[in-house]
């Protein structure tokens, strides 16, 4: 099954896909920005400050999703000895890290008008900061270690340790008394957010997901060319 995922076979797709993904991203982002900044209503309590949600929440969701995917791919890559899974994980990390930073910074900006402070050592915020540290360690590990087996093991350990933090982030607002509000969107139970706000949120999430796909494809292609550069040296 994994033979279909071999870089040699999928490069013809991954090398052509970015330009289409970029066009789609620009279209979806334009719709999302007009909905988020102009057409969506104010919140009855937070007023226009609620609009920060349209960048903060998708960034947080995607950074968590990417870290979970990286862990899953690293574990499977290690068990089934598929080097390409490690390469995919490595290519996903930069956008995950940037989304994590965006979630922290926009959360801080949102905190000032709503909580009266830029930062609080609250469970949700602190656990998101810890996730950013795991992302940083993961990216650094790829830069520090040159040996393939060693870097695979080190990054696997980092992701396994880091994934423990993911449910802590998710449930921190339920387990502890925090400044951060509980989740407004639930897949299994009733969502407390109105459709007029949910729609722009979903559009912005789609735009952010397309951006992470774009960065992943560009990074993955770069990594493949790097490998092929080494191959030319050996000829």
């Amino acid at each position: 099954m994994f033979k279909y995922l071999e870089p040699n076979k999928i490069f013809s797709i991954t090398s052509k896909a970015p330009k289409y993904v970029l066009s789609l991203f620009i279209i979806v982002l334009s719709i999302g920005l007009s909905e988020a900044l102009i057409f969506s209503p104010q919140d009855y309590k937070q007023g226009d400050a609620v609009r920060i949600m349209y960048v903060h929440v998708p960034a947080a969701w995607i950074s968590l999703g990417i870290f979970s995917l990286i862990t899953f791919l690293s574990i499977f890559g290690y068990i089934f000895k598929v080097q390409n899974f490690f390469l995919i994980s490595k290519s996903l990390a930069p956008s995950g890290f940037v989304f994590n930073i965006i979630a922290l910074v926009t959360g801080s900006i949102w905190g000032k008008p709503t909580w009266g402070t830029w930062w609080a050592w609250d469970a949700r915020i602190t656990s998101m900061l810890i996730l950013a540290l795991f992302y940083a360690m993961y990216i650094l590990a790829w830069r520090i270690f040159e040996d393939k087996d060693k870097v695979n093991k080190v990054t696997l350990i980092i992701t396994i340790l880091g994934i423990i933090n993911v449910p802590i982030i998710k449930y921190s607002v339920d387990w502890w008394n925090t400044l951060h509000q509980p989740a407004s969107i639930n897949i299994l139970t009733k969502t407390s957010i109105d459709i007029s706000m949910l729609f722009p949120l979903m559009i912005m999430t789609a735009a952010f997901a397309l951006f992470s796909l774009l960065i992943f494809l560009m990074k993955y292609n770069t990594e493949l060319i790097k490998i092929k550069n080494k191959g030319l040296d050996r000829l």
Partner: protein
Amino acid sequence: MINEILYMNGYGLYVWSAFIFTLVSFASLYFVVQAHYVKERNKFIAKFGTLNSERAAFAKLQGINKEILSNTSNI
């Protein structure tokens, strides 16, 4: 209308700075990744140019090498 969008009842500074930070982060990441891609592709093309005809023909047997050489777009 424009003033309302910019001012946002006093929250404009917070809202706009959050959105601008996000978009600047996107642009920075995109250009950094693109620069790495172009650098590696140019390195590959330069190395390929130094190969003799026999080795170049051998390298071209791998479809991916041909794809890299033919793909001239920056993304």
